[in-house]
């Protein structure tokens, strides 16, 4: 069996990639995709801990499923917002979306 540490390292790496994407990308869609990466990193952690520490229960899997559902909803809302912004502003570049700035 693959040791727990490997999973954790993978998840941490994935999380960092996602974080970098969220912080650095200028395209709103790319930012959304990066958020998905971060969520999946968390999922890996959840499943890994479940498998190694509590193989009898179903808590970890159940949480992972919740995360999927939330991620799907978040993607739907996020993309809808991006489309709405595109329609009104003709851009998805985050720096240009500054309507609230005084």
């Amino acid at each position, binding site marked *: 069996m693959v040791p727990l540490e490997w999973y954790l390292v993978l998840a941490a790496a994935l999380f960092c990639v996602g*974080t970098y994407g969220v*912080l650095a990308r200028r395209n709103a869609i790319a930012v959304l995709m990066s958020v998905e990466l971060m969520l999946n990193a968390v999922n890996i952690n959840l499943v890994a801990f479940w498998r190694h520490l509590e193989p009898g229960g179903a808590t970890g899997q159940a949480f992972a499923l919740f995360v999927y559902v939330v991620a799907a909803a978040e993607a739907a809302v996020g993309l809808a917002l991006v489309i709405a912004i595109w329609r009104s502003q003709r851009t998805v570049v*985050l720096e240009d979306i500054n309507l609230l700035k005084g």
Partner: protein
Amino acid sequence: MEILNLAWLIPLFPALAFVAIALFTYRSRALSHWVTISGIGLAFLAAQVVFWRAVTLPVKGGEHAFESAIAPWVIAGVERLGIGVYVDPASTIMLFMVPLVCMMIFIYSVGYMNFGTPEVDPRYSRFFCYLSLFAMGMLGMVVFNNLLAFFIFWEIMGTCSYLLIGFWYDKSYPDPDKITPKEAGLKAFIVTKIGDLFFMLGLALLYAQVGSLAYHDIFAPETLDQLAHTQFLGSTAATWIALLLFGGTVGKSAQFPLHVWLPDAMEGPTPVSALIHAATMVSAGVFLVVRTFPIFQVANASVLAVGGIPFVAFIGAFTAIFSSIMAIAQDDIKGVLAFSTISQLGYMVAALGIGAYVAGAFHLITHAFFKALLFLGSGSVIHGVEHGHHIIHEHAHGEHAAHGGADKHGRHEEQEGHSHEDVEGWFNPNDMKNMGGLAKRMPRTFWTFLIGGLALSGFPLFTAGFWSKDEILAQAFELSPAVFWTLGIAAGITAFYTMRQICLTFLGKPRTEAAEHAPESVSWMTVPLIILAIFAVSLGWAGIPEHFPVIGGIVPNWFHHFVGATIETAESGHAARVAGHFAETAHGFVWQPLVLSVVFALGGLGLGWLVYGRRPLVAGEMDPVEGAMRNVGLGWLYEAMANRFYFDELYQAVIVRPSIWLADMFDAFDYGKSGGHGVVDGAVMALGSIGKLMSEVSGWVDDKVVDGLVDLAGSAGVLLSNGFNGFDIKVIDGAVNGVGKAVKGGGKAVRPIQTGKLQDYLLLASFAVLALILTFFVILYLQI
């Protein structure tokens, strides 16, 4: 449920019509009169339902009144006055008469106010609005079950009377001595108010004695007994209450000495004269006596009795003969009728005064019909003559009107209402000397007027007026010969002046061009006349005495059975004497009064015919009676009769002038004559001067002493505050500014962080989290 419970709906319909016109429909003339007519129509139907139900109601245990409480009404402190309906024979017969007469007159008014012609009255809708309010007042007075409601509705009618007498308030006459509608309205209002004051005092006394104003409580035998035996101001409480209430009657029903307002009330539109000042409102005063008759029965009649005649009967009989004498010398067609109304009201009052309750009530009802008929007939005549005058006027001024005079003339018409004033002088369409020969021009009006006139004269067998008048005379013959003779002579005079009026108005040749061209009135006006004429004849059949020769008993004396029941069952103590006496006389037939009453009526009519009918008056001729009186040196008497025995002048001199003089004196006392100062004003001004002096002295003290002290304190303050100022600027301001500067600098330093970009914030947050984790591990490491 008992249908009589719904009697309160009867006044509600006209009330709704009033509100509807006042708020909504006043812009539309046609809608307004239809609302009014349907309001009174519904009230009429409801009243008919109540009437027939009440008539067929079985008499239970001597009680002939139906009463039902609707709601607690006035709640003041611990006192509660309930309101409800009270239907007894007296109110039942009123419910038969009032809505019917009102409806006829309302319909007539449509024609009289020239609906649908260019001359239509500019305040047409308002007229119908007032009429509805009046109908509400009259019906409300009849149906409710206590004297307070009675009084309130009574006052509503008084207000309507004022509004309607002064309806043409902008009308004025070239003769400054002739009373204008505005003044007449005021006069009526003030004079009746004198009577109302007594009425109100009577109510207060009654309430103080009984603790209730509901008929049910007042007319209970125990209460009446108590009133009859309570001593109050040298007599009994019942006597005083009856006298005070009778004061209200004197005012409202224009009895001597408060009769002066009624002839002048004829300044109002003729339908109003017919409705309010002949048929209904003025009979409210008589109805008050009918309503409170049990109290009058237990009152001590000998107090204030004049020559053995009870006070009430004396006033009534005196008014009856006094005003009928004045009626002989009146030239105004409505003036004659006004005095005849006063006289007939005197009849009723006299009848009630001697205890002839049923006869008085019967005459009240029949009189309402034939007097309304006569007034409407006279209105139709006036209307016709006015139009006749108008036709000639138009003809003569045709060219003048064509040259731009039309506009002026039109405006003038609008302002003046029905008065026609032109350059040649003023034409009076009410003056009977300006009429004559109208029977051919206005046949419908003539025949109905003739029927009304015969009813008023008491033409034997045929008319309603005969039966009711005969009943009064028969009662008077038994109870008080003096009253009988007075009323009998008054009846003869009544027949005489009625014949004079008919002859002067309708017979002979037209005495003016206006009368020659007078057209018959429209159907709106003549149909109500015909309907009223039918009642002026047929209503008498309800009260034919059963012991009358030949025709007695064919029709049962319904009226007597129905209305008389109230009195026969309400006997108690003192009342038993009058009522018992009354009951005896009512059932035996006595022939003398009948013969005498026929003689009076026919004699008066015959004499009238001899004087005025045989040889009709021609234009410019003097009245034959006036001529005859002048020949025997009684010209002054005729003058006095024509001038109403100078009562107006007397009141003017004795009451009005002194009042004005007194007011002037008080004014002079207050303000002084022009230039000077009166006593009060002078005193006030002296007080003012003293005050001024005192304030000057204290002003000096202020300036020198007080101000000096204040100034000193002020200088010290300035010095001190200068010191504090230095401290403020250096120390406190420095501290405050320092804080400000520090905050400003800090803000400047951290401002660049706030870029507005979400990603920058996230980056910052990430670093912060990293830093926290780092710190955590460092602490963890150091501790281990």
